[in-house]
Structure formats: C-alpha cells, structure tokens
C-alpha cells in the first residue's frame, strides 16, 4: 500500500469514528427531544383531564331528572335548569341558522371567485381580525346595534345576531381553508367535462370540502354556546319560569346562569352550579366528538 493510500484510508477511519460519535450524539439529542415533547403533551392532556374530571366529580351529584327538566327555585339555589338548557339550544340554533349559510357563502366567494386584489386582501385581514375581537366587545356592539338601533330589544334574535358576528369569521375561514385544500386538478377535470364553474363548485368542490366546513362550523358554534359576554347585554336573563315563546323573548342560558349565580346570589348552591357546568361541557363535548368521529369516517373515504 502506498503512503498516500494509507494516509487516505487512515483519514477515512478517523472520519468513520467521528461519524459514529456524531450519530450517537444525535440519537441522544433525539431521545431527549422525544422525552421533553412527550412530557409537555402529557401535561397538556393532564390539565384537560383534570379540568373535566373536576367538573364531573363536583357536578355529577346534581344531575337528576328534576335538575334537567325543572325550573329554578329560590333564585336558582334549588330546582332545575330546564329553561337555561332550552334557551342555550334556541340561541345557538338561531346562531347556526344565521352563521352557516352566510359564512359558507362568504367562504365560497373568497376561495373560488374573489380576485387577488388589494381589496380582497383587506377583506381577508378584516375577517382574521374579527376573530380576535374580545367577546365583550361583541356584547357591547350587539347592545348598540341590535338591541337599541335595530330595536329588537333584549331578545333571542338580538343575542343570536351578536353571536353570529362573533362566529362568522371562524366559519368563513374554515370554509375558505377547506375549499383551498381541494386540488386544482379536480376543478379542472370538472371544467374540462363542460361543467360551469358554479356546477363544479356545487357538485365536486363543496361536497369534498363538506367535512372541513362542518367541523369548522361546529367548533365555532361550540364556542358560541359557552360564551357569556355577548349575551350578557343582549337578552340573557337571571331567571325565567317558562321557556321563551318567540324570537323576541328574553331567555336563560347555561353560561350566563353560572355567571349570574356565582356573582349575584348569596349562598349559591355550589353543587347545582357544577352540575350546570357539567351539562354545558357535556353538550358541547358531545357535539364536538360526534363531529370528529364523522369527519374521520369521511376522511377514510377521501384522501387526495
């Protein structure tokens, strides 16, 4: 072996040991990274489980037939939450009926029709910013615009309109993003078959984006269901014995019931309030979980 070759192979041997040491270090770093990220993930899950467990532990004792179907007595210290459950359903239902069509149509416009100009960029930015506005600000806006200016009074419809303003950006953004995930070549395939743009959207793009749109809408509405601030000035009341009979009625609501009891009632009944929280969390959780299950079933069918 010539001296040059020997030197070369010697160099290679050194390089190989270096390489091994580097690989060992890299494996060590990776193990630490896995441990740290895993621990953080576990901590986050732990907090969620703790919060849920705490609510269930304190609230489960309150859950019985009278609690779910009765009216509040003794300023809410006794009795049930039926009017609050119905009120929440009515307000969220009205909000959904307003938000989903408007939001989906706005999302379709932004994703499929809007040109990329300065104006549409400003519109997009405004929508993103709308999602960041604190909910109490929506509450004040609702009071000014819907309760007073539009003269709807403190009512289900005024509260639902307020919640709609708050939820719209979520639904619009979810719709736009779901539509953008549909590959361009599927749209082109439809156009190349002689379909119009509208038909392409209606028959191909929108059905494919459906799961994303519905999940986004449900998450937005779930948040609306738990909000207190937007309904505080726009229609929620402390106590009602009957359920609302018109869109212009005032209403009881689960989150507002909790807030009002804790802040305004001396010697409030802790167990009933935990129970109310449990009903709210269970309802929102149930809908979210159903949406997730449905979505994953859809995703199994559709992968691009």
């Amino acid at each position, binding site marked *: 072996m010539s001296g040059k070759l020997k030197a070369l192979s010697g160099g290679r041997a050194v390089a190989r040991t270096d390489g091994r040491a580097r690989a060992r270090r890299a494996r060590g770093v990776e193990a630490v990274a896995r441990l740290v990220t895993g621990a953080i993930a576990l901590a986050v899950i732990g907090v969620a489980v703790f919060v849920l467990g705490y609510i269930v532990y304190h609230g489960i004792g309150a859950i019985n037939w009278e609690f779910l179907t009765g009216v509040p007595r003794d300023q809410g210290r006794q009795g049930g939450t039926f009017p609050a459950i119905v009120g929440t359903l009515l307000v969220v239902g009205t909000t959904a009926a307003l938000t989903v069509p408007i939001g989906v149509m706005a999302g379709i416009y932004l994703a499929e029709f809007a040109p990329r100009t300065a104006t549409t960029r400003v519109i997009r930015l405004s929508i993103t910013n709308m999602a960041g506005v604190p909910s109490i600000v929506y509450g004040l806006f609702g009071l000014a615009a819907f309760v007073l200016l539009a003269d709807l009074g403190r009512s289900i419809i005024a509260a639902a309109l307020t919640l709609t303003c708050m939820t719209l950006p979520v639904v619009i953004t979810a719709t736009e993003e779901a539509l953008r995930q549909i590959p361009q070549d599927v749209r082109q395939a439809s156009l190349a*078959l002689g379909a119009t743009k509208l038909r392409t959207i209606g028959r191909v793009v929108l059905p494919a984006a459906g799961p994303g749109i519905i999940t986004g809408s449900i998450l937005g509405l779930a948040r609306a269901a738990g909000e207190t601030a937007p309904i505080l000035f726009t229609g929620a009341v402390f106590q009602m014995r009957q359920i609302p009979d018109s869109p212009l009625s005032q209403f009881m609501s689960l989150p507002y019931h909790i807030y009002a009891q804790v802040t305004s009632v001396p010697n409030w009944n802790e167990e009933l309030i935990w129970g109310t929280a449990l009903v709210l969390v269970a309802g929102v959780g149930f809908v979210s979980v159903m949406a997730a299950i449905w979505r994953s079933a859809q995703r199994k069918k559709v992968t691009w």
Partner: protein
Amino acid sequence: MNVLEIARDGMIAVAAPLADVSARAAESAHAPGSFKLSDVGVAYGRDLVIEGVRMDIPAQAVTALIGPSGCGKSTLLRCLNRMNDEFGTVHVYGSITLDGENIMARSMDPVELRMRVGQVFQRPNPFPMSIYDNVAYGPRTQGIRRKDDLDVIVEESLRGAALWEEVKNSLKRHAFELSGGQQQRLCIARALATRPEVLLMDEPCSALDPISTQQIEDTITELKSTVTIVIVTHNMQQAARISDQTAFMLRESLEAPAHLIEIGATRTMFTNPEDVRTESYITGRFG
C-alpha cells in the same frame, strides 16, 4: 361500427339543440374531430410563450406532442379545449378550427366545446364520489337524467377505457379505492362519457407504473379508431409506440417563445427527422 360510433351518433341527437345540426351532419360524413391550427401564439400576460404554430391534427389518429419541459406542449394542448380561458392572464392568438369551425370565436361556448373535446390529466384526478357517478358526471352535466340512459353510457365508457371488466360489480364503490392506473382509466372513461370527438391527454402515464402505462397505451390504440387523440408525452418510446403523427416543440431560450420545430409522420420523425434539433432531442442529446 362499434359502440362508440353508435354512441356518438346518439350524442349528436342529444346535443342537437346546442350544435349547428346541419354543419355537424355534413361533417360526420367525414370523421369528425380534426383540428387545423394557423399561426397560433400564446402569451402569459405580456410574455409570449408560444409563437407561429401551424399544424393539422387529423381525425382518428394519435398525434404526439413532444419536447423538453417548459416548451409549451401542455399550454398548446389546453388551447384545443379552451382550458386556457380558466387562467385569467393567458391570451391565445391565431386561428384554431375544429371540423372547420373556429373554436376561438366568441360565439363558441367553451362548455359545449369541452363536451366535444375531452381531457385526461397528468395525475389521475377522479372526483371524490363513486365510480358510477364519476363517469355519469359529464352526461348529467349535459342534462341526461334517465337512469337507463346513464347506465348505457357508463358501461360503454368504461368498456372504451378497458376498465369495465374490473369494476362492473363495484360501480358504487368510491373511486379512490381504485389503484392509480385504474383511476387514470376511470378518468379516460369519464372523458369518453360526453362522447367527445377528441381526447386531449397531458402526460397521462407520467404518474403510473409500467403495467398501467401499457394498459393505457393499449386503450389509446383501441380508441383512435373512433376518437382523435392528442397526447403530450415526455416518453420518446411512448410517442414512437402509439402515435401516428409527432410534433416537436422547442423553446430555445427563456427570452424567446417556443416554436413548432417539426411535425410529421411518427415513423419519419423518429428515423429520419429533417431538423437537426429534432434528431438531437429524439436521440437524447438534450432535454
């Protein structure tokens, strides 16, 4: 006369209110589906990318467009069904006629044109729906609603794309359950379902394995007796195997637009090309 010819005669009756019936009837005496391009140019905004293309695309034959990446083959292909209209800033110049009819005229409805000139894309792109609904999509767009009619069209089209035997018992299955090659043949069937005169294929095999490629090539050879086929391909052997006529395009610099360098019978192009650039490309010296 085979199934597709019968099918096309049916289509003329169906599309009668849309098309100029007498002109179409006169044309159908000859085989319909021949293009004539004169001085066709394409610009993206102000950037001229193709210039001065003259070519005849005969009916019932396979014309292959070859050339290096970025030479405008796909762009030229999209001129033939006005798909460039969908990309706002693209302008097409010159004249393109299909069976003597100017397809760039304002009076030509791109929606109608695209039912006569189908397209198959580079990647299989079935719609997220059942196999049946994929094929029935075009006919339904044309307003065909009756289940019996649709059943006939779906079967014919799937047979035309050589997929019928594999899927006849699972038409309700989701299209995404098919393999890549089957999906591409489904896309061919979907394009055939509007009973087109011409089928444009933009590198239809580039995402497929050799066996699927072979099946698609066999399908193309089967189809050319009834449908004019224009295929863009990067695969020289493929062009040589399946095409009757080959057109070689080249963009010699980014500052200059692409030109059609040479067009001729495939056999001549591959054995005895006139232009030295064609020879270099075909023998693999560049591109």
